[in-house]
């Protein structure tokens, strides 16, 4: 009961305080990659703590070795039962949406790879060129037996100066190298499954933005202004009437791009090793907390209150 209450408190506290601490912190813009790890740790920690609640509630009903007797549970078996059912429901929901999302992503990605094989022309600079006048640039993570690819449209190649194209390519290669799509897919899965949990929705929005900042920093440590110009050129180049109007999210993406361009105008952020180390240590603590909270009361009780086991 004590362990379960502590875990519930952890879920509420981490779920409410965590996002607030992370969202407005200035260091997340300086160390976006560390911030991504913190968001992931926060999400997994809350998920883990919530999953451990029913398990700790069930502990008093498990048979003890040697026929010992548990402490009585003040509320009886009902909280444990309800929590078990809720956990089973949540886990199956996660499993169903997870399997569905993985299948859908795989299908769409393999389709994109097929399309590229048929339509694209490999360029010696390590990208695939797609013959389209609209300027766009994106990366496609590796699929089954297909290497990852960076796609540049003819429009983008003609629009960008060679140096701009170079940093834009490095940005995309950084996404692939750092497996940013996995972080995005994970938070996307959580926010898609548990849409009502504000933490997950916010984590997804933030991670989507932070991976771009991380790739920006890695792509252009010394050519930030060049990358900024490339971003502006490309977002201008894709604004044509021939494109299908995208629904929603436009304003959000506009502000996000604006923020990136402003950020690239400023000098490269100082590496901030200490801050990053602290952030990662905090992420570690947050992740370790749920299992520790789950077992701590039991361990404490065993140390102080149990009669020594006497075997006949």
């Amino acid at each position, binding site marked *: 009961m004590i362990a379960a209450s502590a875990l519930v408190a952890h879920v509420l506290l981490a779920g409410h305080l965590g996002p607030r601490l992370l969202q407005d912190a200035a260091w997340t813009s300086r160390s976006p990659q560390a911030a991504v790890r913190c968001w992931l740790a926060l999400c997994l920690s809350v998920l883990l703590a919530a999953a451990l609640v029913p398990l700790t509630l069930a502990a008093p009903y498990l048979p003890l070795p040697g026929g010992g007797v548990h402490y009585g549970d003040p509320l009886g078996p009902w909280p444990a039962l309800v929590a078990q059912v809720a956990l089973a429901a949540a886990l199956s929901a996660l499993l169903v949406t997870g399997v569905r*999302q993985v299948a859908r992503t795989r299908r769409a990605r393999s389709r994109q790879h097929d*399309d590229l*094989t048929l339509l694209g022309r490999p360029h010696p600079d390590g990208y695939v060129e797609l013959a*389209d006048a*609209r300027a*766009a640039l994106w990366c496609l993570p590796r699929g089954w037996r297909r290497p990852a690819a960076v796609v540049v449209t003819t429009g983008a190649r003609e629009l960008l100066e060679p140096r701009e194209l170079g940093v834009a390519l490095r940005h995309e290669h950084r996404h692939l190298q750092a497996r940013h799509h996995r972080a995005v897919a994970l938070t996307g899965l959580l926010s898609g499954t548990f849409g009502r949990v504000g933490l997950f929705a916010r984590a997804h929005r933030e991670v989507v933005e932070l991976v771009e900042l991380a790739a920006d920093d890695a792509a252009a440590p010394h050519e930030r202004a060049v990358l900024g110009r490339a971003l502006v050129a490309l977002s201008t180049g894709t604004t044509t009437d021939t494109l299908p109007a995208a629904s929603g999210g436009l304003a959000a993406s506009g502000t996000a791009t604006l923020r990136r361009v402003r950020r690239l105008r400023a000098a490269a952020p100082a590496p901030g090793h200490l801050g990053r180390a602290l952030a990662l240590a905090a992420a570690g603590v947050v992740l370790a907390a749920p299992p520790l909270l789950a077992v701590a009361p039991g361990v404490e009780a065993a140390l102080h209150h149990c009669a020594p086991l006497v075997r006949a």
Partner: protein
Amino acid sequence: MRRLGQLEAAVMELLWSRGDVETSVREVMEGLEEQDGARRLAYTTVLTVVDNLHSKGYLTRRRVGRAYAYTPRCSREEHTAQVMGEALAASSDRGAVLLRLVDQLTAAEVAELRAALDEPPA
């Protein structure tokens, strides 16, 4: 031997160049041999490649006599437009399939962006 993907691309290239003309597997084979000069491809290889393209939805087919005749489902340009549409769409599970450099913006946002380029560095 060319990799299967390259062979698929060559077959599509050939069929796209023929437009809406229905083409049999044997004609595809002959067309590829013309392009490649001395290289000979086995009939079954070409059949497999064409059948793959059909099952992936790139080709439609109609039974003519004892064999099938194939045509591209859509032109090269239409197909490219579809790929672009998918890549640029603001999809609900964004970022899972692909990550693009920048999003589409409205004209007002673009103006703001241009202005940001001229701002003094913060």
